């Protein structure tokens, strides 16, 4: 029986009208629980409650636990038909060549299981067999997610058949109506390609071929043509140099295609002959602090106008002309010093000029002819820069005037690299036909009607004549990853030819180049030398008019545009290795910037300052060249000539790059008339820029025992104990060398049996080029961490190249200043002053990696013995054992240990190459990818030394000297790094341990490292 009874607690409940009470009854709590106080109003409705959160947390924990109970099922998929050459686990090397219009080199490509993972120098190649940092990094550019995956027509994906059909129809229509079509390529010193282009032009007579370099060497080409009758660049052999005078030429950088550091380094290593040491003398006259300037014995900061005058004065001095110069005392003295050195060096002296000025270049050639220099090779010149600025200017005028109906671009991005790209873009949009051969959807490709997706150079064929008579072959090292075709194949197709580019190369080479030599052998070697008959006939040497042209002076500030070691002309902007590569001079990564001298910075109110955590901040400056204006961050650069500012090209590209890589400012709009020197107005702009600089201390503070150096005079006359003394400590009131076993806390472990690896770094030969840094990244799977992490000093580079400036004019001056400090007050002020680099400092580079101490401070403090020592001298790091206490990093006197603060792979927060399947293909399968919370460091490439040992065991033989290599020593074309087994008494490295110049870093700490340095000797004559 249903009851009608109703219980009540409160008389109000009987009132059915009372809505508020009814609604209260529905709720559990009278007031809303304060669970969502932090949530904003809008999120309120959907915000998760505490209970939901706990439910979810509980469920996910349980799910994760259950999921973890069972191991993953790993599939192993063998080939259906295994290629004969590929054995899983064994690396194959292929010789090929890079020629991207900016970098030209013969290289070896290491492939594993069919995928290229590393670039190495082809040391056998006669010319350009050295890979710089960009070439080393180029393998990662192949695994770029931004690459075009197939051809496009008017923005939609098409097949190659449709693509060629449509383009051919358009070309034929244009040919029929006789309208002009221009094919613009980068410098392509490829005999077969030239042949193919000629055939293409034969079929389409309205096609013109134009060569375009983003950063041309037009003046030098013109000067050489005027003087020697051939449009090419002279080559230089600096290995025998006694005196080098470089005027605005960063020949250790990208000057005229680069590749001179190996020869230069040879001439820089002091050799003793009959008790007298000899090395080359190097004077650098320049505006920006360049790599070459940093290595020079004497560096003269000067404006571009002064450099012209310097050249004219030098010519007059050497030619014995009496002429009045408008040089100041400093430069006059420099001219005298340079002339003296050049004259005494005779044929072993050379002058190099980087000014984009035909007159200056002609005078330089005249000086070298006057000197009778044997270092300059005019008989077989280089063909690796070919663009003619005047032709490009004429083309642009015609393009804007609508006189051109079609443009085909290949390997270039003029709408990014042209100074007036905006106008050119408008003109390009009006074209009847525009075809862009490009590997990414960049500025040019994105407005082209047709976009031909091109392969990376590691997927393509190629043949090059780098230098007269010196050829290189390029072969694919992997099947094309995407649906791409190279320019030559498409041109052949459009010409109506049935052959492929590969067949064309082979038949052309067999007919014209090989002269009976084996094609297979040449392809295997990657290079071919066919010395040509010497033809260096001087056409003219009359330079009086040019001398007159050089004597102009300029008012106001000059902007000197340059290319950075890491980025070059900007082709590899989407390469995270290169973006994170610290510039050798400024040590700044992920940026370009305006370099300003301290005097100018003070005048303009520009500052650099360090934030509380040490990170570097800088002012912005407005840079105005003609009508072009941009705002760039400022770095105060010691050694920058007063009255000049520098800015790197190659940054600030926006299309075809990941958002993370769109850094820096685009300086190409200031690169007007392809002249790197521009009149400029600089003023302070608002705001502060955050730099990612990996070195926050710039000077050596008089600690001469870190980078030990001496002068050539002292080196050749004084005893080793004077200029390279081993630190001493006192024991029983007796001075003992710190290396003596008498004063050692530790017992020495016997390492005389088996291998004992040592690495020697010659500070004289190291130019700071940074090839070793990138090689180390590639070999050891070093992660990229991004700009914000670098700012927190969390860079992961196993190998860094420290760069130091002197605070006096010389490092020796620093040492004296420090030694002369008296009292506390003096020390405070003096040390404060010493933190500032000199206006024109000496510069020293010092590569530092784990020193593999025999008495390693890191090993003793590890609570879990993750860091231990091997008998072969390597300091082992067992990542799987490491628990991340970081005691080792704290105890390391060299600060070379790197901690994984985060998981840098498969983590969207670090969206670089390790976060996608394509980018991970570059990883070295022999080296583990470290996880979060683990300490890592240089292993002295133990995977490489082990590989050498294991191979020798397999073949049952002894190991020869030179077989042991590390990634860095292998990448060092300058020969600064020598690696080997010191128990092999015949080895080069064993001899270097006994060298007078040998010292250890922070020797007084007594760590007994297995890495040694060779004292830097400066040639301070005159």
């Amino acid at each position: 029986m249903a009851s009608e009874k109703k219980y009540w607690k409160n008389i109000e409940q009987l009132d059915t009208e009372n809505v508020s009470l009814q609604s209260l009854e529905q709720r559990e709590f009278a007031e809303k629980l304060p669970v969502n106080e932090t949530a904003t109003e809008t999120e309120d409705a959907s915000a998760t409650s505490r209970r939901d959160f706990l439910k979810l947390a509980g469920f996910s924990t349980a799910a994760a636990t259950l999921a973890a109970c069972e191991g993953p099922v790993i599939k192993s998929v063998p080939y259906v038909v295994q290629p004969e050459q590929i054995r899983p686990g064994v690396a194959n090397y292929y010789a090929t060549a890079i020629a991207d219009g900016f970098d030209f080199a013969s290289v070896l490509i290491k492939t594993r299981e069919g995928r290229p993972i590393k670039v190495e120098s082809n040391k056998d190649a006669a010319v350009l067999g050295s890979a710089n940092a960009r070439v080393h990094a180029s393998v990662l550019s192949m695994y770029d997610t931004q690459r075009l995956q197939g051809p496009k027509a008017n923005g939609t994906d098409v097949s190659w058949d449709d693509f060629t059909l449509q383009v051919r129809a358009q070309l034929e229509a244009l040919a029929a109506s006789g309208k002009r079509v221009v094919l613009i390529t980068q410098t392509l010193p490829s005999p077969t390609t030239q042949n193919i282009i000629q055939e293409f032009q034969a079929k389409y007579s309205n096609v013109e071929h134009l060569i375009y370099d983003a950063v041309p060497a037009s003046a030098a080409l013109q000067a050489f043509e005027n003087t020697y009758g051939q449009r090419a660049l002279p080559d230089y052999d600096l290995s025998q140099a006694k005196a080098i005078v470089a005027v605005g030429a960063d020949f250790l950088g990208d000057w005229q295609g680069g590749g001179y550091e190996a020869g230069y380094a040879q001439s820089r290593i002091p050799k003793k002959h009959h008790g007298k040491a000899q090395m080359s003398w190097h004077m650098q006259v320049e505006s920006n602090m360049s790599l070459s300037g940093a290595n020079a014995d004497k560096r003269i900061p000067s404006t571009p106008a002064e450099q012209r005058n310097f050249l004219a004065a030098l010519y007059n001095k050497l030619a014995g002309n009496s002429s009045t110069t408008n040089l100041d005392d400093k430069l006059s003295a420099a001219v005298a010093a340079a002339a003296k050195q050049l004259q005494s060096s005779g044929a072993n002296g050379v002058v190099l000029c980087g000014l984009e000025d035909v007159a200056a270049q002609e005078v330089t050639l005249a000086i070298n002819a006057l000197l009778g220099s044997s270092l300059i090779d005019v008989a077989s010149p280089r063909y690796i820069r070919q663009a003619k600025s005047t032709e490009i200017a004429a083309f642009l005028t015609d393009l804007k005037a609508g006189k051109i109906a079609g443009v085909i671009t290949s390997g270039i991005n003029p709408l990014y690299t042209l100074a007036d790209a905006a106008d050119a873009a408008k003109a390009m949009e009006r074209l009847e036909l525009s075809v862009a051969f490009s590997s990414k959807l960049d500025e040019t490709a994105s407005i082209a009607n047709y976009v031909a997706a091109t392969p990376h150079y590691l997927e393509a064929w190629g043949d090059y004549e780098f230098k007269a008579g010196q050829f290189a072959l390029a072969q694919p090292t992997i099947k094309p990853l995407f649906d791409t075709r190279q320019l030559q194949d498409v041109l052949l197709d459009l010409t109506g030819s049935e052959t492929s580019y590969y067949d064309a190369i082979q038949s052309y080479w067999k007919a014209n180049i090989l002269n009976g030599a084996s094609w297979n052998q040449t392809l295997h070697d990657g290079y071919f030398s066919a010395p040509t008959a010497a033809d260096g006939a001087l056409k003219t040497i009359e330079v009086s008019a040019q001398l007159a042209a050089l004597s102009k002076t300029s008012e106001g500030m000059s902007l000197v545009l340059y290319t950075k070691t890491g980025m070059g002309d900007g082709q590899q902007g989407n390469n995270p290795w290169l973006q994170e590569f610290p510039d050798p001079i400024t040590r700044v990564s992920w940026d370009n910037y305006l370099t300003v001298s301290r005097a100018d910075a003070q005048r303009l109110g520009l500052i650099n300052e360090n934030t509380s955590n040490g990170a570097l901040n800088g002012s912005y400056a407005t840079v105005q060249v003609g009508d072009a204006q941009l705002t760039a961050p400022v770095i105060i650069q010691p050694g920058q000539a007063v009255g000049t500012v520098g800015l790197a090209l190659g940054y600030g590209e926006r299309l075809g790059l990941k958002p993370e890589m769109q850094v820096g400012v685009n300086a190409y709009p200031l690169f007007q008339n392809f002249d790197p020197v521009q009149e400029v107005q600089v003023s302070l702009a608002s705001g502060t820029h955050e730099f990612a600089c990996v070195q926050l201390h710039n000077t050596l503070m008089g600690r001469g025992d870190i980078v030990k150096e001496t002068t050539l005079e002292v080196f050749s006359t004084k005893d080793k104990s004077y200029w390279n003394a081993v630190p001493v400590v006192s024991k029983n009131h007796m001075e003992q060398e710190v290396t003596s076993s008498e004063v050692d806390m530790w017992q020495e472990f016997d390492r005389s049996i088996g291998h004992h690896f040592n690495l020697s770094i010659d500070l004289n030969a190291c130019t700071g080029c940074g090839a070793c840094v990138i090689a180390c990244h590639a070999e050891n799977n070093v992660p990229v961490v991004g700009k914000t992490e670098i700012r927190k000093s969390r860079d992961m580079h196993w190998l860094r190249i420290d760069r130091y400036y002197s605070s006096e004019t010389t490092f020796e001056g620093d040492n004296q200043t420090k030694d002369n400090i008296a009292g506390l007050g003096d020390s405070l002020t003096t040390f404060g002053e010493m933190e500032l680099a000199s206006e024109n400092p000496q510069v020293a580079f010092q590569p530092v990696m784990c020193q593999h101490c025999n008495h390693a401070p890191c090993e003793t403090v590890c609570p879990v013995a993750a860091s231990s020592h091997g008998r072969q001298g390597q300091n082992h790091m067992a990542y799987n054992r490491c628990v991340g206490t970081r005691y080792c990093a704290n105890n390391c006197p060299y600060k070379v240990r790197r901690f994984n603060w985060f998981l840098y792979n498969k983590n969207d927060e670090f969206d670089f190459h390790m976060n996608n399947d394509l980018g991970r293909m570059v990883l070295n399968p022999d080296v583990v990818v470290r996880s979060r919370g683990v300490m890592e460091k240089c292993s002295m490439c133990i995977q490489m030394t082990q590989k050498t040992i294991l191979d020798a065991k397999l073949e049952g033989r002894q190991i020869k000297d030179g077989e042991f290599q590390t990634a860095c020593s292998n990448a060092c074309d300058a020969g600064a790094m020598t690696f080997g087994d010191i128990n092999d008494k015949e080895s080069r490295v064993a001899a270097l341990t006994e060298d007078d110049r040998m010292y250890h870093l922070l020797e007084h700490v007594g760590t007994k490292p297995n890495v040694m340095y060779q004292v830097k000797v400066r040639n301070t004559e005159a």
Partner: protein
Amino acid sequence: MIRAINRVNTLGFPLLLFFSLLLSTGLQAQDDPAAAAGKKLFNANCAACHKLNKKAVGPALRGVTDKYEKEWLYSWIKNSSAMIKAGDPQAVAVWEEYNRTAMNSFPQLSNEDIDNILAYTNYVPPAPVAAVAAPQAVGSSSGSVADEFILAALALVFAILVIMLFLVQKTLLRIAAASGVDIAPEARPQRTPIWKAFVQNQFVVFCTVVFLLLSSAYFAYGYLMQVGVDQGYAPIQPIHYSHKIHAGANQIECKYCHSSARVSKHSGIPSLNVCMNCHKNIAEYNGEEDLENGYTKDFYTNEIKKLYAAVGWDEETQSYTGESKPVKWVRIHNLPDFVYFNHAQHVQVGQIECQKCHGPVEEMEIMYQHSTLTMGWCINCHRETNVQVESNEYYAKIHEELSKKYGVEKLTVAQMGGLECGKCHY
């Protein structure tokens, strides 16, 4: 899995018998001496390209004498290409049919040899005589039956004895009751229950707790240490590949298929073209069967068909179709990424048998992980195993110096530095 293997072993005996029956048909062939000689010649010269009943590289040979004249066959076998050149219509027809692949010439065969081969191709073995085989089977298995019978008899005797003893006791009790002897159960004094005594004795409680803690810690440790250790892992593979048949019955050397173990860190799973080196001719399975597990001849033959499907081999035309789909094997031996292991160094330099780590692979119908593959397992072996320094020039100097230092003739891997962290972890 190991249990399964044992089962296979127990079955081995009857299976062997079964095969001995099959073999008896082979013996019968020797009754015809021409066919027996022909079989030998056929296997030596023809079997690479021809089968009796089936098309292979060349046509099936059974009944070939019906199709062609004997004289024609003599000249064809001795020099086929000459006949094709001469334009013999039959010869050209065969040549065209088989993708213009010329047959090897066999000038060394005499007409008599060829007769023998042809006799073999025509030989039809008589139906096996079951009556002959039956008593053999009974006779050979009688031993085990007798054993079982004796065992059963003994068990019966034992049971009778137990029952008798029980009955005797019962009878004795009854006699005692009848004669007035009171066999009352002893009155037990009241004692504290054992559990109370246990609880009251604090020392024993303490000891027990310590024991329990220690033993649970022992088992917990044991449990945790086997996490991630997949010993005995025997996943089902996309193709039932029997190492027992290949490495066991057919004695194929491990490194014939796993050739990269000689030169590389990986032993390598053979690519399918390696399989086809043999399986181009072996299209069906004719070996032992394991009926209990369903491993019949058809089963194995079907697995070979899977291989053909993967590699894209058309049996009809004896050619590759070009349509292949790689086999996704399940990897059994998985080392963590942070361990470097090199097969070539162990197999080639160290001359270690594959079986040392992988177990009796030649007996594995289904491949499984034999060893634990833990670091302790590696280290133990490195401590015990001597380095193979003989006739390896690499070790000449280091062996001399180290053996002097340690005062031993033979060096273990550990003494060579094989226990250092960085030798395997980088």
